[in-house]
């Protein structure tokens, strides 16, 4: 084996995996307490958070009176009651403080005339427990994620956080159930690196890339959940995937809900505003799962637009060119580049697009990873933390509200970083690593590099993503999901025999994509198994054959474990209904 396939070992106190909003926020916090390093598969500002558009939710009351209790109510209802109410209360209470903190760091928020942070309306967010309208989304035009990610990175530079950029994580190291680091691959030069740490925080983002039509970046392949499952830990609620109603037809790229927040609305081929019928009160600003099904129903019912009748139209030109160019400049650009449409003049063709991973690595409200064990269903895994889209706290339950992800990144990034920092400070030394630490990750890379390259990997990945879309999309059925399971078994078998064409060490994208494909297969297996078992419809998971929510049978979180043969075993745990200080929000029908 060539020299650069050697193993280099690094010792760090706190290790953050992922440099998106959650990872950077955690690194800032932990870095104030202990020696902290971040590893990321891309340069930090290239993380997917950069794409976020519409804003971050917080009850600042800059436009009208608002209250974190209203925000909490909307979040619980939006989650279709699958969200854990202690974590949701915590998030909504902390929201104003994390937004103010970002402003102090320099985030260039848009401003109101009096100089305070600009807030806009967003789907599912209301005032007075569903009774009124509210402007809760704090925004930097329609580039809030870009502004946030750059601001956090700038703050990390100021604070001197240590980065290992373009390092790809291959394995999470657990020693007798305690986290002690990760194995990674140096993407630029090649070679294995073992990061021996006192604690690890996973902030690797979501898995929506497993669907063909998606708003997500190439790198959103569910690495965190897959690596946890490979380490013997569960993933939680992976079957809950959010389809955003307005992806650009043919491309999948996102047109933010802020377009509807600023006054845009959807039309079918008869020029009807069909959302007025689907959701009489909230109309076009109902929750995403509701609007996505609204569009999909129009298409199914033969009322879609275009020659194939397979999309809806999103109209925004009536708010005027000046407003569009001031508040939605990025959207104007996206619609122009990807749909060839000038949205100041014409409507944008849109379809539901796979957008957000509600499921992920199970954590408690302190961002500590939990697994069934000696202390019940939520036994803490010492030294292991997770935050952001990779994690499942669960604040989003079965459906996430717009603007609540960026909020989740900041609240649980900060909390997880603080918890991790304190934990690391309390550990006097590093755990000894066993001989076999990292061997699984190294074996995987060697298999992919050393085997003969018989077939290209691209078509397999594309087929997988298409199968997920066809059999596990906005509408799901038992027979479709069974068919999907069969196809997944075939894809797993094909992958086991696959090796990459590029045998080099330097910037081997072929290798990285193959590793990602392996992770996607694990994630897809858990999605399919969870979706097949869950015989109800709730939030983002809609079963045509079980169209009602079934609280008696299914008001619980799914836990999925990877079995040695590649199968997936399921377990369940209750939803935490007790908030921290206020009354529980009791189960109720979800109407908009």
């Amino acid at each position, binding site marked *: 084996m060539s020299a650069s396939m050697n193993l280099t070992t690094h010792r760090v106190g706190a290790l953050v995996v992922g440099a998106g909003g959650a990872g950077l926020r955690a690194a800032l916090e932990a870095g104030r307490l202990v020696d902290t390093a971040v590893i990321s598969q891309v340069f930090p500002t290239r993380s997917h958070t950069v794409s976020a558009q519409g804003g971050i939710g917080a009850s600042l009351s800059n436009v009208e009176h608002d209250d974190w209790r209203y925000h909490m109510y909307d979040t619980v209802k939006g989650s279709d009651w699958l969200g854990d109410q202690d974590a949701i209360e915590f998030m909504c209470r902390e929201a104003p403080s994390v937004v103010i903190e970002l402003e102090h760091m320099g985030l260039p928020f848009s401003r109101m005339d009096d100089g305070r942070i600009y807030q806009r309306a967003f789907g599912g967010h209301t005032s007075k427990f569903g009774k009124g309208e509210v402007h809760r989304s704090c925004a930097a035009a329609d580039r809030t994620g870009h502004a946030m990610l750059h601001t956090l990175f700038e703050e990390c530079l100021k604070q001197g956080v240590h980065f290992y950029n373009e390092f790809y994580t291959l394995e999470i190291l657990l020693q007798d159930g305690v986290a002690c680091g990760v194995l990674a691959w140096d993407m630029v030069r090649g070679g294995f690196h073992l990061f021996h740490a006192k604690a690890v925080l996973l902030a690797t983002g979501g898995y929506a890339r497993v669907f063909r039509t998606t708003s997500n970046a190439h790198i959103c392949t569910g690495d965190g959940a897959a690596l946890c499952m490979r380490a013997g830990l569960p993933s939680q609620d992976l079957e809950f995937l959010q389809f955003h109603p307005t992806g650009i037809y043919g491309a999948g790229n996102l047109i933010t809900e802020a377009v509807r927040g600023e006054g845009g609305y959807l039309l079918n081929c008869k020029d009807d505003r069909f959302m007025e019928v689907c959701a009489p009160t909230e109309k076009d600003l109902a929750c995403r799962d509701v609007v996505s099904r609204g569009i999909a129903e129009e298409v199914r019912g033969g009322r879609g637009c275009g020659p194939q009748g397979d999309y809806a139209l999103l109209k925004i030109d009536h708010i005027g060119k000046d407003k569009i160019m001031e508040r939605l400049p990025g959207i104007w650009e996206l619609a122009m580049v990807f749909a060839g449409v000038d949205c100041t003049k014409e409507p944008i063709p849109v379809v539901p697009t796979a957008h957000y991973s509600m499921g992920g690595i199970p954590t408690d409200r302190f961002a500590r990873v939990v697994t069934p064990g000696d202390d019940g269903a939520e036994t803490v895994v010492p030294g292991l933390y997770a935050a952001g889209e990779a994690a499942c706290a669960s604040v989003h339950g079965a459906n996430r509200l717009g603007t609540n992800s960026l909020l989740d990144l900041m609240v649980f990034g900060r909390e997880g970083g603080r918890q991790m920092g304190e934990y690391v400070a309390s550990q006097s030394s590093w755990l000894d690593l066993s001989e076999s630490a990292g061997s699984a990750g190294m074996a995987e890379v060697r298999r992919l590099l050393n085997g003969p*390259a018989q077939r290209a990997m*691209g078509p397999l990945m594309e087929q997988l993503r298409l199968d997920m879309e066809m059999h596990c999309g906005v509408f799901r059925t038992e027979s479709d999901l069974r068919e999907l399971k069969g196809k997944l078994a075939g894809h797993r078998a094909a992958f086991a025999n696959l090796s990459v064409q590029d045998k080099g060490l330097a910037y081997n994208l072929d290798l990285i994509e193959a590793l990602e494909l392996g992770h996607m297969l694990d994630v897809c297996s858990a999605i399919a198994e969870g979706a097949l078992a869950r015989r109800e419809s709730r939030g983002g998971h809609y079963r045509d054959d079980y169209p009602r929510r079934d609280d008696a049978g299914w008001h619980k979180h799914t836990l999925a474990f990877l079995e040695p043969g590649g199968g997936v075993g399921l377990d369940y745990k209750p939803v935490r209904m007790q908030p921290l200080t206020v009354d529980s929000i009791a189960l109720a029908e979800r109407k908009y």
Partner: protein
Amino acid sequence: MQSVTFTILRYDPAGGGEPRYQDFQVNITKPGMMVLDGLNQIRWEQDGTLAYRRSCREGVCGSDGVNVNGANMLTCVTHIEEVARKGRVVIQPLPGLPLIKDLVVDLEDFLRKYFTVKPYLITRAPAPDKERLQSPAERRRLDGLYECILCACCSSSCPSYWADPEYLGPSALLNVWRFIDDSRDEGAQERLDILDDHHGAWRCHTILNCVEACPKGLNPTKAITGIKTALLKRKF
């Protein structure tokens, strides 16, 4: 089915050889195909060894700046049909930067220069409990500056940047002006000290390649003019 020839600069550090050009045929399978779609098609179906960077595939992450037919641009938001000349697209890595492999360049020096200019908010007054106030007019001054995606298209198109290895370059200078011009920032003087140097703002000879190259429509030259004016004001 129509096809376009992609002529791509290949470089393999392990091979020890010189960079060379290789032709691939890309099938136009749908309207509006981007250069990135073509690169993906080549790698997925023809040659898995081709290396390039990409992530968001919508022009905001800044990973995929390359040189297409002589001009710097992002592969993910460049339509093949817009750049093809006589059925051919010539793709090279960003000029003036060390090669890692194929279209992947080493951005370490580019980023080091960005880090040098203290690209973060510097404040001395303690922060209020609430947000700092900023008027919409003050905020508007940041438009055209804060949107930078650090793609390096501008700096790598700048003859002064090629000629002077220590020149900070248009990207770093635009990014520093984003803070100097922020009504909330109090670090102008310490930054201007760094910039008042022949490797700083004065190295810009207003060649304007950067303006042409920026895929986000930003104007680094205008930012540099702002810096020069501030430096002169400080002197007199």
